[in-house]
């Protein structure tokens, strides 16, 4: 018999139960995750604050030039970059968040940053959300907004911000 082992009291027996040990480890992971989330200002990403988009500084150029752009007073990041229905907005935010954090953490992305094709379509929809009436006549018969070849930002590239 192993004499080194402490006698099993009800207390120690409780901590040796597998379910309890698993619970402890999971709690730690959850705690660390919560801390990491808070430290990385995770909640800010659910907001509409444009400052959230420069948390990691990679989009500083875009943020700085947006402040000087023609749209500065009327549109912030989310106005153009995410859909405007509740489900679509948070689904897009989740997708963007996943792509961006993967790119930034691994450092594996195209520099200068390029817009994702899906994101480009979201931007186009948002151009028309405000300017739809004005552009109706030209959007009606052409392929405007329907393809990546002809969309608003192809020509109006810097209305939102400079850089890419």
């Amino acid at each position, binding site marked *: 018999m192993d004499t080194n082992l402490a006698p099993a009291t009800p207390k120690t027996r409780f901590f040796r139960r*597998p*379910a309890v*040990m*698993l619970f402890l*480890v*999971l709690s*730690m*992971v959850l705690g*660390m*995750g919560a*801390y*990491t989330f808070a*430290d*990385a200002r995770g909640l800010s990403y659910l907001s509409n604050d444009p400052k959230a988009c420069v948390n*990691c*500084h*990679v989009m*500083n*150029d875009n943020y700085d030039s947006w402040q000087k752009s023609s749209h500065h007073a009327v549109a912030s990041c989310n106005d153009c970059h995410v859909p405007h229905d509740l489900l679509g907005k948070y689904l897009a935010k989740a997708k963007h968040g996943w792509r961006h954090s993967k790119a*930034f*953490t691994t*450092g594996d992305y*195209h*520099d*200068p940053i*390029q817009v994702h094709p899906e994101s480009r379509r979201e931007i186009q929809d948002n151009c028309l959300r405000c300017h739809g009436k004005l552009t109706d006549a030209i959007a009606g018969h052409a392929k405007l907004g329907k393809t990546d070849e002809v969309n608003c930002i*192809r020509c109006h*590239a810097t209305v939102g911000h400079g*850089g*890419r």
Partner: protein
Amino acid sequence: MSKALYTLGFVAAAGAGVGVALLLGNIKKHQVEATVTNYDLVKVDEKTADPAEWGKNHPRQYDSYKRTVDMERTRYGGSEADPKKPDTTYSKIEEDPRLVTMWKGYAFAVDFREERGHAYMLQDQKDTERQKVVKQPGACLHCHASTTTVYRAEGIKAGAPGDGTEDLCSAAGKEQLMKGFDKVCSMPYADAAAMAKHPVACIDCHDPKSMALRVTRPGFLDGIAVLAKSSEPTPALPSVEKWRKGDRKRDYDPNVDASRQEMRSFVCGQCHVEYYFKGDAKRLTYPWHKGVKVENILSYYDEPVFKDGKPYKDFAHKISGAPALKAQHPEFELWSQGVHARAGVACADCHMPYVREGAMKVSDHQVRSPMLMIDKACQTCHRASEAEMKARCELIQDRTKALMDRALNGLCDLIKDIEAAQADGAGDEELAKARDFQRQAQFRIDFINAENSMGFHAPQEAARILGEACDFARQGQVELAKKHAAKPALPKPEVKAP
């Protein structure tokens, strides 16, 4: 639940813990990157020539600076090693023997290779075969070594006030620099080179106190000041035009007058320019007195104010006897005539683009061809694919090369014709006009040939220059043909009435 399932859950949870910890570490690292952009580990001052010292404070920039040892090539340039002589690049005169004809009688006909990266500038200048066939002056060192501290030390020895610790832009600092420059220019090359320890380094472009860009090369300081005094428009250099509208009480000084964006070209223009050695003192001079266009420079050289009251020449052409000129890498001059320059794009925008490193933005100090980094160099502004940008650039270069081939053929034909006329007994007076056409054509061809972009820096200007070169070469031939035609009257063809 079974024990195995618990163990699996336990291991998975622990793994997730490790993952979260790693992510937290990564986020922390990026957060620190965003706040600390440089490290003041050592003190650098006006006497710190060694780039490794500066590198301790600016490790990212220093890292990329050191990578200028890389030897890569593009279609028309780059610096791939010569398989026959691995420590050098391939020979341009072996690749195109017409260049030997063009430079017959000058050291470039002996050895002319593709330039290597900044890291090799001092070594390659010491090693070139040209050193063996002519006695080079210390003036050559101006652009092949870190000379800022060397000039100042020599200037103090020559009697300039101070001890070399003053701000370079102070009166004492400037006097040290200029006095030392004069002294080193007239030295034999070997003596001058013995004083230089590094290829171009941090102190040659940066102020050690503020890290701001700073022009330190006397040749450029003089050159841009005389350019400012000329009447040639300089739309690519707005601060020069602004100075011209002022009271002009003092000379144009890039370190005072230029914008930061202009300085991002001026620090490169300190060396990537056309130049000559003035007089017996071999003072390095940029011939910008009438402007920086090829004809401005030529008309400066053409004035009969040089040796023996004649126009300036680098050498007498060995075959034709023409008073020939050798153009040297006029990148700054050609760039200034291009659309990029006019749009305010600086050398550093394409050759040292900003790169993202984690949460930081640093300018890439591995100065090299933008063709090797099209994403960062071109796509910051151009919204086309990398393949498309490369194709656009190579199209410009292919067209320039085709035009240069025609111009070179014309020049070689003219040289052959002058040679034949000489053998026929034609004298100097009779050949003067043809020889001048050779000089005019040759300098224009060399202006584009020696320039390191195969026309890209200003495509239309390059084509204009080469078009003129073709014309001058053939005009020279016509000139000779006229004289030949004048002697034996050709039988006139009979014209019958219809």
